């Protein structure tokens, strides 16, 4: 009995860690969707690029200095952040600006193409082999009561919480953050306030690339082998966002965490008792998606949109 309990406990913690990453990816594209009504299918691949870039910086610094230290990781992270800011700005220029008034279908095609291009480019530059990222937190684990938790998972959860708090603060208490909210609510009225909405859109893309990169950095050590298929994981942010209520930022976060927990529990305890669940683990997220759409299409936090005439 304690076996099952401790198993469940571990799975829930590790599910929350995985879910935090889904939540961050979902947060990134919910922000873009709310502000610009672009559904960015490349969000997962942004994360993948971020993970690769960070890996590149870490290994470059390691080969120069030898021993890994906290500084190596900090400087690498800082470089990755700078990269993601520039990359977000670049995406705003090549995707958002030219396609602002284009039909939704063109925008979907553009972000899908962007995803494929990024995957191909990264494979070309980094080579086709999988890389082994190093975690700054090592692979230790701690035991609380009967539950064994990996330090990596804890650090992922902690980082995600800190990030969400920082974002919450920016969006609700800073001038530019509130302006971002205002722009996503009513871009026309925002313009009449003198808010430069082109700059706001660029900012939103930068934020979104930044969250993607950070989630990539967090996720990479957890999946042990880094290759370009990491981008596919990002697609799971969609069921996460739908589960929470598409377009809702708290919804994206809660949906992501729940989805992560569902995945790890189904892979762990449940598949131990029901062999067949193991087979469907990879697609369980999509079952959740279909179930939510059938039962509660607005998700947990979704508000029914009443369109004013």
């Amino acid at each position, binding site marked *: 009995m304690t076996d099952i309990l401790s198993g469940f406990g571990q799975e829930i913690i590790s599910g929350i860690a995985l879910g935090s990453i889904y939540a961050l990816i979902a947060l990134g594209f919910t922000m873009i969707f709310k502000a610009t009504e672009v559904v960015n299918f490349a969000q997962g691949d942004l994360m993948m690029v971020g993970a690769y870039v960070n890996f590149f910086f870490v290994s470059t610094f390691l080969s120069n200095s030898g021993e890994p230290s906290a500084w190596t990781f900090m400087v690498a992270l800082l470089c990755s952040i700078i990269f993601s800011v520039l990359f977000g700005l670049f995406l705003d220029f090549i995707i958002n600006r030219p396609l602002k008034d284009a039909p939704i279908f063109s925008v979907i095609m553009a972000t899908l193409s962007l995803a494929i291009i990024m995957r191909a480019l990264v494979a070309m530059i980094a080579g086709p082999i999988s890389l082994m990222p190093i975690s700054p937190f090592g692979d230790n684990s701690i035991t609380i009561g009967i539950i064994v938790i990996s330090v990596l998972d804890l650090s992922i959860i902690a980082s995600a919480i800190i990030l969400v708090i920082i974002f919450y603060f920016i969006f609700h208490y800073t*001038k530019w953050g*509130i*302006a971002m*909210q*205002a722009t996503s*609510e*009513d871009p*026309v*009225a*925002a*313009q*009449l*306030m*003198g*808010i*430069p*909405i082109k700059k706001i859109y660029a900012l939103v893309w930068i934020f979104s690339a930044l969250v993607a990169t950070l989630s990539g950095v967090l996720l990479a050590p957890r999946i042990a082998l880094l290759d370009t298929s990491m981008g596919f994981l990002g697609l799971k942010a969609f069921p996460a966002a739908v589960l929470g209520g598409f377009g809702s930022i708290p919804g994206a976060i809660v949906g992501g965490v729940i989805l992560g927990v569902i995945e790890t529990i189904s892979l762990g305890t449940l598949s131990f008792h029901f062999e067949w669940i193991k087979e469907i683990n990879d697609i369980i997220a999509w079952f959740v998606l279909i179930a939510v759409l059938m039962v509660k299409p607005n998700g947990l936090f979704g508000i029914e949109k009443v369109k*004013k005439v």
Partner: protein
Amino acid sequence: MLKLVGVETYYGKIKALHGVSLKVEEGQLVTILGANGAGKSTILKTISGLVEPENGTIHFNNIRIDRKDPEKIVSMGISHVPEWRRIFPDLTVYDNLFMGGFLIKEKELLSERMEEAYAHFPILKKRKDQLAGTLSGGEQQMLAISRALMIKPRLLLLDEPSMGLSPLLVQDIFATIKELHKSGVTILLVEQNVNHALKIADYGYVLTTGKIFLSGTYDELINEEKVREQYLGEGKYIRREKLWGG
């Protein structure tokens, strides 16, 4: 102060303004009257830069503004209260005013203007932490006007401020507009409520299908038979569909 010459604006291939020319002098309250779809809102949108005119020029204090971005035009001192108010419903009343003062750099000035807005409409102070979407129609209109006044505009564009309000609130709103005008704000007012608008205005333009077809002072317009027929419901035949903009 504001001068439009031969302004032509298109929505896609549809011509909404067929060469509109009008003038607003410093300190005036000018009104544009006309039925629904005549192009009244389009004139305001063209002035504030939300849509670009195809032809014609717009000058504000002798500076040409018709190719400038909306945020640049706001920073020159033109505030636009759009049709249906368009407050930010999921932001608090305070944050709505804060956004109205987006261009204000100094913190003290911002809070000073905020206090002025609260002094003018005490109900906004009472509701400052409430989401703006929960306000009543009249309160939302007060918020929309206060939000536009945050930058102390030199010219205020008002698009149908009485829309969707009860007759009593309409009286209030027009009293507020009159007060603003008295305090020295130059106003360009678009209205379907002809009677009210003409009473407080110094000068009026009547617009039909994208063209100015009459202009004059209250006395001149009120005695013009066409205006009486079409907009005041007097005269030999009343065209209701025009009167109600149907």
